[in-house]
């Protein structure tokens, strides 16, 4: 049995691991990847100590620091956690692949993932024109017509990037544009771009590849079909909180509510980073929250052993 299991290997989880190791806690960090959402951030310009650094490089530095403590922290990568439940003397963590792990205390730091549209053919055409990673797959749609779905900063950035290489860009948003004004101005003045505001996406069409999307005006209910080869879905994020939904009540956004001491209300169960109700989703905030959670878990374990 471990003293502490950290679920998630992003900025919050890795920082928690370093703090736990420095307290000599026998720790397991279990995660699908190392770096989490830090990996999909192209350039980080607000992590103190670096004027700018690629997200991937920053996460490598985090990882190197975790590896300094390999005697105290065991790392299991490539495993998705299915469920966290209470067990004798603490908690049981069950991986999707079937293994179980036990610990006296747990920190959930599983972050968020891209929100899906939940429309027909979205899953079937993933990787065949539907993408949630504009910086990865953008170049594949050079000279094609594409649709960017969303109205926030990620959508506007994707639209701005694609205007430079695509034949035409349709920006489809359920709401008025909500991103930074500087990006809105840039996108509105682009010549190869058409904006559909207050339109919903009804379905994605195509057999083996994306061929079109069907959209509907929220007010007039009029439907339109746009012939596109690519659909960039940029409609925000959802918390990876499914493993704990039976353990406690999530807030209306699906996040784990924590107090200022990273406590969840279930003794011995702490949470940190983007999966929690802490409002600002930033690498520096997640790292700080990870540190707080590990220190709090250490105090909890000390009280437990008395």
């Amino acid at each position, binding site marked *: 049995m471990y003293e502490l299991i950290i679920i998630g290997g992003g900025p919050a989880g890795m920082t928690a691991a370093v703090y736990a190791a420095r307290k000599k806690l026998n720790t397991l960090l279990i995660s699908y990847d190392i770096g989490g959402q830090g990996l999909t951030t192209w350039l980080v310009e607000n992590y103190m100590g670096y004027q700018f650094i690629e997200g991937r490089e920053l996460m490598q530095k985090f990882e190197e620091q975790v590896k300094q403590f390999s005697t105290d922290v065991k790392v299991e990568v490539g495993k998705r956690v299915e469920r966290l439940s209470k067990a004798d003397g603490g908690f049981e963590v069950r991986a999707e692949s079937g293994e179980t792990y036990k610990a006296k205390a747990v920190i959930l730091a599983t972050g968020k993932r891209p929100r899906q549209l939940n429309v027909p053919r979205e899953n079937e055409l993933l990787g065949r024109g539907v993408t949630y990673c504009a910086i*990865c797959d953008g170049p594949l749609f050079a000279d094609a017509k594409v649709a960017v779905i969303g109205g926030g900063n990620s959508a506007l950035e994707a639209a701005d990037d694609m205007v430079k290489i695509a034949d035409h860009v349709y920006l489809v948003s359920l709401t008025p544009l909500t991103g930074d004004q500087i990006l809105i101005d840039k996108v509105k003045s682009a010549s190869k771009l058409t904006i559909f505001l207050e339109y919903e996406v009804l379905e994605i069409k195509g057999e083996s590849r994306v061929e079109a999307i069907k959209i509907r005006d929220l007010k007039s209910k009029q439907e339109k079909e746009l012939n596109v080869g690519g659909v960039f879905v940029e409609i925000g994020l959802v918390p990876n909180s499914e493993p704990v939904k039976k353990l406690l009540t999530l807030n209306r956004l699906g996040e784990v509510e924590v107090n200022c001491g990273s406590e969840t209300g279930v003794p011995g169960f702490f949470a940190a980073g983007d999966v929690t109700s802490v409002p600002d989703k930033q690498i520096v905030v997640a790292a700080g929250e990870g540190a707080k959670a590990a220190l709090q878990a250490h105090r909890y374990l000390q009280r437990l052993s008395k």
Partner: protein
Amino acid sequence: MAREVKIYTTPTCPYCKIAKKFLDDNGIKYQEFNIVEDKAAREEMKNKCNSLAVPTICFDNEVLVGFNEAELRKKLGL
């Protein structure tokens, strides 16, 4: 017999870098195609592998789109 592993990438794709690191760490030799510069490779990936996302990893008759360590381990027999 050494199998021929091809990986199609873009320079801005973080998962491509993770996938290459995984192959390197496991001593798997591969050929990399940067599909931003190499238009022939881009067409090959689109048409032969029927993929419009990176990384696309092809070997034998397998096509893996995206980086999924568990699946890659299974298919490569690691």
